[in-house]
């Protein structure tokens, strides 16, 4: 520490290194943490996040047991659509592919776009619940006064733990009309 130019060099080096840490942590917060969190949720079923589209494989349907699947529909705040499942619940055999429908009506005088977000409990069942087709994979547009049947095809995995007898699948419908307009204007 006696030589001034040596101290100066050491200071410059440390400042550069610490600034590097600052930039790295900023990048980590915005570009690494959110995707990492999504991967983590996919693996663990955390927050009841269900996966994307599933390719059905040939399996033996386990007719020895039945799992009850309950359907819920919620409108996010300010969402005026009528949104409800066709049936409140259904009993399925693990491995069997089932199709159910949700009904949506846009009672307003405007064309609107909606996005449904699924959530499933119990969380540990999330990885055993496969959707081969879901209206939640896409945004739904309805003209003024228009109604639609929204299809959902799913398979409950035959490996689902024995203690899971009931799965509750909930969809929350969000109004994304304004977000789309904003995204297009940018």
């Amino acid at each position, binding site marked *: *520490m006696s030589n001034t130019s040596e101290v100066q060099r*050491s200071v410059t080096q*440390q400042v550069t290194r*610490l600034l590097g840490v600052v930039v790295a942590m900023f990048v980590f917060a*915005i570009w690494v*943490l959110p995707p990492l969190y999504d991967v983590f949720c996919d693996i663990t079923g955390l927050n009841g996040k269900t996966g994307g589209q599933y390719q059905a494989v040939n399996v033996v349907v386990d007719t020895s047991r039945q799992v009850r699947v309950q359907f819920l529909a919620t409108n996010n705040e300010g969402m005026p659509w009528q949104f409800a499942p066709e049936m409140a619940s259904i009993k399925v055999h693990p491995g069997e592919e089932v199709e159910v429908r949700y009904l949506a009506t846009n009672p307003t005088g405007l064309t609107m776009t909606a996005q449904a977000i699924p959530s499933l409990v119990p969380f540990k069942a999330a990885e055993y619940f496969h959707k081969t087709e879901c209206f939640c994979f896409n945004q739904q547009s309805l003209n003024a006064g228009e109604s639609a049947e929204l299809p959902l095809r799913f398979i409950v995995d035959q490996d689902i733990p024995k203690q899971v007898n009931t799965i509750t699948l909930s969809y929350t419908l969000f109004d994304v009309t304004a977000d789309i307009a904003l*995204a297009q204007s940018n």
Partner: protein
Amino acid sequence: MAHGPAKGITRWLYTTNHKDIGSMYLWFSLAMFLIGGVFALVIRAELFEPGLQIVDPEFFNQMTTMHGLIMVFGAVMPAFVGLANWMIPLMIGAPDMALPRMNNWSFWILPFAFCMLLSTLFMDGGAPNFGWTFYAPLSTTYAPPSVTFFIFAVHIMGASSIMGAINIVVTILNMRAPGMTMMKMPLFVWTWLITAYLLIAVMPVLAGVVTMMLMDINFGTSFFDAAGGGDPVLFQHVFWFFGHPEVYIMILPAFGIVSAIIPTFARKPLFGYASMVYATSSIAFLSFIVWAHHMFTVGMPVAGELFFMYATMLIAVPTGVKVFNWVSTMFRGSLTFETPMLFSIAFVILFTIGGLSGLMLSIAPADFQYHDTYFVVAHFHYVLVPGAIFSIMAGVYYWLPKWCGNMYNETMGKVHFWLAFIGLNLTFFPMHFVGLAGMPRRIPDYSLQFADFNMIASCGAFLFGAAQLLFVYNVVATIRSKHKATTEVWENPEGLEWTVPSPAPYHTFTVAPPIK
């Protein structure tokens, strides 16, 4: 020392002197402390009786938010940076900080950040009202328009903290007097070194989280918006990844201050110096892996709850080491109870109470009952007010004679201490009871059963507030006093800062002092 300070306002605007900058930080944080305190008194006045009397609920929410933000970012953090600026060069025998110009900049952007934040109170839609933790979507979809000013204010104060922290690390690592090895450094220097690393690691994460909010609000991204595939719970994870180390940022320097004061007034060397260093490092490390204990109720898998519960409980071990070291330092010492010592002893006792309520909160199944109640408010005020604030006041009374060259009035100091001590306990102790009974935090009205305890808490808060006016008086009176302090100020205090005259000359240690 022919080269003295410049005259007039430019001395303060252009200064690169660590003592000037330290003083400015301390005055700034005192101003913020008083403003944040007024906001707290608005809250307590409204909660004096059940029902809505003084402010409307919307404004009440703005007060809780602004009180938290101002106290955390405006009062506690700048006060610690101010103490670091003043004391670290004096303690390690350096002539100044390693990066004096950046030091000037890191201070002078702060007043702008807080003017911006405070100006939101006068804007359409009011100031931020979503709590100091600004959870999305409350702070994005449902936020008042002034949220953008809040975001930029956080960016600026983050930049200031990062620059301050880099400066402190580089100063400590390069500017020590020859012979001062790492394990000879005073603990205040050690705790600040570790704090500075924490700041460098997590302030960018805070900047990241507010940037994501900014993009969600203005540019149509969906980091925290479920409709676009984001997740509001992600906000809580990122925020608390910053937030938990942040709470240690606000307490580690306090450990350093108390570790300097207790040996002086116990007239014994600090017990367990090396274990203090290791305990501080362990606390800093653990602070990165416990963040989700703030969010036990979001619906985590049991394995997650257990991990965060046990990791949190583990922090009690190094913290206990510190508390026992302070107690052992006092054990069989020749104790005297000057004002800094009173504040330090109160720190040890009351911080331990706050730590133990933290241990209660760390029990995941019990936390479901305590979550978002006044018990949490009682807990973090017990660690922050007698923890951070009392240690800062202890530090001010301890070093003020060195800074201004005059001795403070001991009686006035003690009166300030006792009023603050009684006020603090009256304010926050009853909050434990109403919290356990289920009173939610951040609500302007409450059920009748909580009325008596809330009235006591409000009386205590006004007493505590009044005591701080006495503090301001004491500081100003000491600066104007004619009662000169000696070079050593106290009886055989340890440390290089007591080898320079009182008041400390504008330039000190231009020649490195010999280290024994």
